[in-house]
C-alpha cells in the first residue's frame, strides 16, 4: 500500500478491525471501557509508527498484539487490578501454550461470539436508548465521537459524555460479557434490533436538520444488521429487520429530488429503486418466513415494504394485502403510528373517506399531538376529498410541527397548492 494518505489508510484499518479488537480485548479484560481505551492506545501507536514503517501485513493482529502488551504493562503498574492481572496472565499463558503463531488466528475462533457479546453489551437495557445508540456506533460501527455527533446533530462533548457514562454504567452494574440465553435472549435481542433500526431511521428520515436523509447512517445500520444476521442466523426477526432496511434503503435514490426535497413513495420514479437491495431484502424476508418468523413486527413491516417493492407502478400495489398486514401489526404492536399508517393503507385500498374515518379516532391521541405526519396525512385525505380549505390548514399545521427543513418546504408547497385551487371548492 502506498504511503500517500497514511492516516486515511489507518482510518480504514481501524474501521474494519476495531470491533473485532475491542470484542477480543473485552473478553480478556472483562471491561468494555478499558478494552476500548487499550484499543485506542494501540491505534495511537499505529498512527505514530505506520507512516514510518508502513502498514504491517496483518494490521489487525498488530493492533491486537499492541493492545495486549499495553494491557500487561498497565496491569503490572496497577496493583489495584491484581485480580484481573492474574486473569490476563492466565489467558495469555493459555494462548502461548497453544503455540499459535498468528494472534489473529487464535482470535478468529471466538471472534463471532465475542462480537455478538459486544453487540449485546452495547445495547444492554441498563443503558438509556441514546447511550445504546452512541455506544453501538462507536464500538461496533467504528465511528468516531465526532462522526456520531455530526450524525445526530448534537455537540461532540455530549456524545463523549454519553459514551463515558455508558461505559461506567456497564462497569458499575458488572454487566457480564456474554450472550444471553433462554428467555432473556428474546428481550435482549429486541433491544439490539431497536437500536439498529433507530440508527437506520435517523439516517432515512432525519428528524432534524437541513438534509432529508443521511445515507451514511443508513449504511452503518444496514452493515450492523447484516453482521448480526450472520451472527445469529436462526433468529427470524433479525432477518425481518434486515429485509425491512434493505427494501427501504433501495428507495434512497428515488426519494430525494434534485434540490434535496423529499419525494413521497407513490410519486417516486421506481426505475431508480435499487434492484440489488430489493433482491437482498426479499431474500432476507424469505429467510425470516422460512424460519417461521413471518409474524414478527419487523418481518410484518418488511412484508409491507415488499408489497411496494414488488409493484412496478403505484397502481399495481396490493393495498388490500397491505391493510391486512397493518391489521396484524396493529394487533401485535398497537401504536398510534401503526394506526396512522393503517389509515393511509385503508384510504388507498378503499378511498380517502375510509382513511379519514380511522384517522379521526386518533385526533385525541396525546402522543400524536405534536407529530407532523398526522395533520400531513389528514391534509392529504381532505385534499383528495376536495375539502381544500381544511386540507390547507392541516398542511400548514404539519409544516409548523416538523423539525426537518426539507419536509417543511414540501408541506408548505402542498398548502400553497390547496390555496391556489380553492376558487373551485368541492371539485375532485
Amino acid at each position, binding site marked *: 500500500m502506498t504511503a500517500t494518505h497514511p492516516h486515511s489508510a489507518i*482510518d*480504514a484499518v481501524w*474501521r*474494519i478491525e476495531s470491533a473485532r479488537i475491542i470484542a477480543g480485548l473485552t473478553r480478556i479484560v472483562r471491561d468494555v471501557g478499558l478494552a476500548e481505551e487499550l484499543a485506542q492506545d494501540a491505534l495511537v501507536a499505529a498512527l505514530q509508527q505506520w507512516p514510518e514503517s508502513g502498514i504491517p501485513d496483518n494490521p489487525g493482529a498488530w493492533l491486537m498484539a499492541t493492545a495486549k502488551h499495553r494491557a500487561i504493562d498497565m496491569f503490572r503498574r496497577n496493583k489495584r487490578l491484581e485480580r484481573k492481572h492474574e486473569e490476563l496472565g492466565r489467558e495469555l499463558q493459555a494462548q502461548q501454550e497453544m503455540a499459535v503463531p498468528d494472534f489473529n488466528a487464535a482470535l478468529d475462533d471466538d471472534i*463471532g461470539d465475542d462480537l455478538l457479546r459486544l453487540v449485546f453489551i452495547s445495547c444492554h437495557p441498563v443503558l438509556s436508548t441514546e447511550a445504546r445508540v452512541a455506544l453501538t456506533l462507536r464500538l461496533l460501527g467504528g465511528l468516531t465521537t465526532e462522526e456520531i455527533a455530526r450524525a445526530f446533530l448534537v455537540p461532540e462533548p455530549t456524545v463523549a459524555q454519553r459514551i463515558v457514562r455508558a461505559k461506567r454504567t456497564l462497569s458499575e452494574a458488572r454487566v457480564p460479557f456474554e450472550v444471553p440465553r433462554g428467555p432473556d435472549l428474546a428481550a435482549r435481542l429486541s433491544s439490539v434490533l431497536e437500536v439498529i433500526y433507530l440508527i437506520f431511521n435517523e439516517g432515512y428520515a432525519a428528524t432534524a436538520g437541513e438534509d432529508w436523509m443521511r445515507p451514511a447512517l443508513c*449504511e452503518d445500520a444496514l452493515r450492523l444488521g*447484516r*453482521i448480526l444476521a*450472520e451472527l445469529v442466523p436462526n433468529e427470524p426477526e433479525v432477518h425481518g429487520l434486515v429485509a425491512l432496511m434493505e427494501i427501504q434503503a433501495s428507495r434512497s435514490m428515488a426519494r430525494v429530488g434534485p434540490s434535496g426535497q423529499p419525494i413521497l413513495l407513490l410519486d417516486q420514479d421506481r426505475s431508480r429503486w435499487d434492484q*440489488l437491495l430489493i433482491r437482498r431484502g426479499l431474500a432476507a424476508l424469505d429467510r425470516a418466513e422460512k424460519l417461521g418468523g413471518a409474524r414478527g413486527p419487523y418481518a410484518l413491516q418488511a412484508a409491507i415494504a415488499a408489497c411496494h417493492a414488488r409493484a412496478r407502478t403505484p397502481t399495481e400495489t396490493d393495498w388490500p394485502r397491505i391493510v391486512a398486514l397493518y391489521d396484524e401489526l396493529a394487533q401485535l404492536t398497537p401504536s398510534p403510528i401503526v394506526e396512522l399508517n393503517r389509515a393511509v393503507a385503508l384510504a388507498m385500498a378503499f378511498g380517502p373517506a375510509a382513511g379519514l374515518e380511522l384517522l379521526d379516532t386518533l385526533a385525541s391521541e396525546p402522543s400524536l399531538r405534536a407529530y407532523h405526519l398526522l395533520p400531513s396525512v389528514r391534509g392529504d385525505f381532505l385534499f383528495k376529498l376536495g375539502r381544500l380549505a381544511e386540507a390547507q390548514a392541516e398542511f400548514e399545521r404539519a409544516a409548523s410541527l416538523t423539525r426537518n427543513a426539507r419536509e417543511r418546504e414540501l408541506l408548505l408547497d402542498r398548502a400553497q397548492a390547496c390555496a391556489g385551487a380553492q376558487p373551485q371548492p368541492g371539485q375532485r
Partner: protein
Amino acid sequence: MRFMMIVKSAEKWGFPPKPLMDAIAKLSDEAVKAGTMIGNGGLLPTATGARVRLSGGKVTVTDGPFTEAKEVVGGYAQFELKSKEEAVKSATRFMELHREHWPGWEGETEIRQMFGPEDCTPKA
C-alpha cells in the same frame, strides 16, 4: 459508499486454481459476515460472450472469444464501505491472495465508486 470491484487479466490464464478459489471463498465469507460485500459474480470465458458495438451509426455484433483484448473482465463484486481507502485495502487483500495461490499470474482489480444516494442530495 458503494464500490464496484472489477477484476481484469489476460484470458490465457484460464480458471483460477482450487486453493485460490477456496481462499477467495473464505475472504468473501468474511466480507459477508462483516456486512460489507453485497453482491459478486464470476464471468465465464469470453468465448461464451459477444460484443454489441455502436460505431459510425452502425450496430455490429461480434461473437467471442475476444482474442485481440489484452485483458478481459473476469469477475466483479459490490461492496458498501466508508471510504476509497477501505476499498483499496480490500482489493489489496484480494490481489495478495492471487500472489500467494497463483504464482506468475498478473492482473488488476479496478475500483470504481458507484453513484449513490449521497450523490443525489445537493451539498448544503
